[in-house]
C-alpha cells in the first residue's frame, strides 16, 4: 500500500524537484565544507544558512498549498503553526545552553532567572531531550490544528470566515506569547542558542547539516503531499474544494476530509518552524504576526496555487528577491512586493508554475494535434488515391 502511495506520488515533475533538492542537500554542504574559502565554487556559510532558511519557508508554503490549493481552505494562521514548531525547537535549544547562560543557572533559562522564577514550569519538562522537542514540534501544531479544525469544520465555517478566524487565532497567540507570564521569554523570545545535539550551532558543519536536513525534509514533504493529493482521498479533497455541498451530498464526511488535510499541513508547518529556528538563531512572538501568514499566502500564489512545486518556487523567489532588494534599495522593496501581489493576482492567477505548466500543456496539445493531423493526412492520402 505504501509503495503504491509512493509510486502514485512520483510523477515526473515531483521526481525532478525532489531529486534536485536531494542533490542540493549533498552538494551545497560539500561545496561549503570541502572547498577552500577562496575557491571559485566555495559557498559561504551565510549563504548556506540563508538558503536553508528559504527552504524552511518553502516547506511552510508547501504546507499551505496542501490546504489552500487542494482543499480551498485559505488559512491566514499558518505562521502560527510554524512559530509553534519553532518554539518547541527553541525550548530544546534553550535547555541545551545549561549553565552557560549569563546567569549561569544550570536548570533555568536566563529570562526565567531574570523574572525571578524559582523552578521550571511544567510545560518545559522534557525539552532537554531532542526527540521529545522534535515530537512536540510536530504534535503541538498538529493538535492545535486538529482542535481548531474540529470545531471550525464541524460548524461549517468556511471561506472568508475561516480565513478571518484563523487570523484571530494567530493574533491571539501573538498577544499571548508577548506576555512574560506565559513562560516563553515574552517580547524577546528565545535566543542565544549554543548547540544542538552536542554540536556548536554556529559551526560550518552544523549549518551545512541543518541545510541538508531542511532540503531532505522538503523533498520528503513534497513526496508525501504529492502522494496525498494523488490518492483517492486527494480526489475527494479536490471535490471538497470545487463543490463542497455536492461532495457532502454524495456521502463524504467533508469535515473529516478537511480536518485531515489541515492537521497534516499544520504538522508540516511545525517541522518547517523547527528547522527554521536553529538556522536563524532566534524565535520571538513576531513570528505570529498575521502579516507573516499573509506573506506565506503570497509566496504560494506567486509560485502557483495547487501545484505543490509552485509554492517552493514562489517562496524561494520572493524571499531571494527580498534579500537582494532590501539590501540594494530598501525604500523600493515594499513597492516591488506590493506591485508583485497586484500583478500576480491580475495577470498570473495560476502563478508562475501554473502558467508555465499550462503553456507547456498547450504546446504539447498543439504538437499532438498537429501530429494527429499529419497522421490523418498520411492515412488520408492513400485513401484519396484509392
Amino acid at each position, binding site marked *: 500500500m505504501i509503495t503504491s502511495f509512493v509510486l502514485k506520488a512520483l510523477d515526473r515533475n515531483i521526481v525532478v524537484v525532489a531529486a534536485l533538492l536531494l542533490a542540493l542537500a549533498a552538494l551545497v554542504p560539500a561545496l561549503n565544507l570541502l572547498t577552500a574559502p577562496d575557491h571559485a565554487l566555495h559557498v559561504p556559510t551565510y549563504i548556506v544558512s540563508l538558503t536553508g532558511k528559504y527552504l524552511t519557508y518553502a516547506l511552510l508554503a508547501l504546507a499551505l498549498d496542501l490546504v489552500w490549493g487542494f482543499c480551498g481552505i*485559505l488559512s491566514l494562521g499558518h505562521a502560527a503553526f510554524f512559530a509553534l514548531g519553532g518554539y518547541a525547537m527553541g525550548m530544546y535549544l534553550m535547555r541545551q545552553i545549561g549553565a552557560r547562560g549569563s546567569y549561569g543557572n544550570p536548570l533555568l533559562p536566563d529570562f526565567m532567572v531574570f523574572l525571578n522564577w524559582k523552578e521550571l514550569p511544567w510545560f518545559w519538562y522534557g525539552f532537554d531531550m531532542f526527540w521529545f522537542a522534535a515530537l512536540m514540534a510536530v504534535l503541538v501544531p498538529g493538535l492545535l490544528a486538529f482542535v481548531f479544525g474540529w*470545531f*471550525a469544520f*464541524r*460548524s*461549517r*465555517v*468556511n*471561506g*472568508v*470566515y475561516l*480565513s*478571518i*478566524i484563523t*487570523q*484571530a*487565532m494567530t*493574533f*491571539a497567540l501573538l*498577544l*499571548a506569547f*508577548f*506576555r512574560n507570564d506565559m513562560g516563553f521569554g515574552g517580547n524577546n523570545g528565545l535566543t542565544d542558542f549554543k548547540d544542538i545535539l552536542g554540536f556548536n550551532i554556529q559551526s560550518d558543519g552544523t549549518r551545512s547539516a541543518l541545510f541538508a536536513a531542511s532540503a531532505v525534509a522538503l523533498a520528503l514533504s513534497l513526496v508525501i503531499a504529492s502522494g496525498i493529493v494523488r490518492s483517492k482521498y486527494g480526489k475527494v479533497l479536490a471535490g471538497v474544494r470545487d463543490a463542497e455541498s455536492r461532495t457532502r451530498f454524495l456521502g463524504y464526511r467533508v469535515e473529516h476530509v478537511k480536518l485531515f488535510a489541515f492537521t497534516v499541513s499544520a504538522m508540516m508547518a511545525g517541522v518547517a518552524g523547527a528547522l527554521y529556528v536553529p538556522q536563524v538563531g532566534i524565535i520571538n512572538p513576531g513570528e505570529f504576526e*498575521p*502579516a507573516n501568514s*499573509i506573506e506565506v*499566502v*503570497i509566496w504560494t*500564489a506567486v509560485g502557483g496555487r495547487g501545484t505543490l512545486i509552485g509554492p517552493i518556487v514562489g517562496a524561494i523567489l520572493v524571499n531571494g528577491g527580498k534579500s537582494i532588494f532590501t539590501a540594494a534599495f530598501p*525604500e523600493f522593496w*515594499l*513597492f516591488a*512586493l*506590493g*506591485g*508583485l*501581489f*497586484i500583478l*500576480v*493576482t*491580475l495577470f498570473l*492567477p495560476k502563478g508562475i508554475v501554473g502558467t508555465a505548466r499550462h503553456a507547456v500543456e498547450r504546446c504539447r496539445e498543439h504538437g499532438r494535434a498537429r501530429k494527429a493531423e499529419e497522421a490523418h493526412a498520411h492515412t488520408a492520402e492513400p485513401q484519396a488515391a484509392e
Partner: protein
Amino acid sequence: MHARLIHHFLQCLLIAICVTVTMLATDLKAADGLRAMVDALGGGNFQQNQKQVEALAGTGDPKVVPALEALAAGDLYQRKADGVVFIVRPAGGNFTLVDALTGEAGGEVPKAALEKIKVNNGLRRAIRSALGGLTLMSPDAGVRLKAASTILRAPSADALEGLDAALAAEKDGAVKAVLEQARAASVLVSNRPADEKKAAVATVVKTGGREALSLLSAALSSADESLRPDIEAGIDQIEDQLALWAAGQNIWYGLSLGSVLLLAAIGLAITFGVMGIINMAHGEMVMLGAYTTFVVQQVIRTSFPGLFDWSLAIALPLAFLVTGAVGLVIERGIIRFLYGRPLETLLSTWGVSLILQQAVRSIFGPTNQEVGNPSWMSGAFELGGLTITWNRMWIIVFSLAVFASLLFLLKKTPMGLQMRAVTQNRRMAASMGIRTPWIDALTFALGSGIAGIAGVALSQIDNVSPNLGQGYIIDSFMVVVFGGVGNLWGTLVGAFTLGILNKVLEPYAGAVLGKILVLVLIILFIQKRPRGLFALKGRAVEA
C-alpha cells in the same frame, strides 16, 4: 399747601443726608480701623500676625480679602519710611504699590524702600481658614461656593463657627448643600459630641466620593465605640457607590473603544460586508484620512492660524474626497477584475496596502506626525463620578452620526437602492438598467471615503504614522464578521459589544489577556453562528 409740601420734602432730604453722612462716617471709621489692623501686620512676629489675621477675619469685611491673599502669596510689603502696608507688583526693577484695602495704585518705589512681611506655614493655614470664613460671607454666590468646597476638601474644626454663621445666612440652595457637607466634614474632625457626629456621618455618606471615603476612614481610627458601626456602614455604602461608578467608568471606556471600532469598521462593512471584497487596504484608507488631517493642520498652522479650531471640519470633506478617489482608482484599476474571487482580492489589496504604506513613509517619513486637538476637543468634564474627556465624547457622537448618515444613504436614497440591488442580484439589477460597474466603483469609493473620515477622527486619539492602519485592520475584520457580514446594524452592535466586553474584562484579566479572551470568544462565537450576530438570510447568502 405748597409750603407744607416743600417743608416735608426738605425734612426728608435732611434726614436722608444725615443718615448718609453718619453711614459714611462709620464706614470711614471702620476703614480706619481696618487700615490700622492691616498696618499692624507689618511689625509683628509670626504669632502676633496669626492673631492679627484672626482679628481681620473677625471683622467679616470682604475688603481685607486681597490683603490676606497677598500675604499668603508673599506679595505684602511694609514701607520702611512710614510703616504703611501695601500689596506690591513687580515692575521692572521696582515695585508698583497697590493700596492693601482699596486696591488703588500708589506709584512705583525701589525695592530697597520696602520690607517683605514674612509668612510661615502656620500663618498660611490661619490665612486659609480666615479666607474661607470671609469668603463664605461674600455677596457673590460663586465665591461662597468655592469657599465652601475648599473647606470641604480640607475640613478643620476651626471653620465650624464660620460655617454655622454662613449656614444661617445662606439663601442659595446649591451653596447651602455644599456648606452642610463642609460642616459635616468639619464636625467629624472636631471634638464635638457623638450624636452630632452621627448626623455628620450621615451627611458625609450622602456626599459620597473618594474624599468622603478617606475622611470616614480617618475618622474611624479616632471614633469612639458608639460611632463605629455608623462609620463602617457608611464606608461600605460609599465603597459600593464607588464600585458602581468604576463599573460605569469601564462601560464608558468600553463605549469609547466601541466607537473607535465602529469608526474603523464601518467603511469595511461596506467594502467587505456589502461588496464581499476582503479589503486589506482598508486600514491604509484610515491612515490616509489621518494624514489628510495632518496636511490640513500644517497648512492652517503656516497660513491661517486663526482657523485652527475649524481644521477638523475642513479636513473631513477633504479626507472623504482623497480616500474616495484613491478607492475609485483601486476599484477601477484592480478590483473590478477580481469580482467573484474574494480570496484573491485579499492578495491584491494587501499589495495595495504595502504600496500605500511605503508611499506615505517615503513622502512624510516613518516617524509620528503631530496632529493637534482643536480647543473644543481638549479637556474633560465630570459627570457624577465619571471623568469624560471631550475628544472621546465627540468621537462617540461622530461615530454614531457617520453610522446614521450611512444608513440613511443606503436605505433612503436612490443611490443606496441601486447599491443594494447590485449586491443582491447583479444580473437582475443590470437588466433593470442599473450601470453595475459604475455602482461597484461608487460603492467601493464610498467605503474608502468613510474610512478616510474615520481617519480624521482617529488622528485625534492615535499616533499618526504610516503604520496607523495596521493597528485597526484585524479589529475591523473581527467587528464585521462578529456583527454579521452585509448588515450595518450588526457592525454597530458588534463594535460596541466588543468594545465594552474588552474594557469590562480588562480590570480582571489585564489588557492583553482581556484582548486574547475576546479573540477566543469571537472564534467560539463564529462556531456557534458561522455568519455572525445578524446573519443575512435568503438567496443572497449563497451568491
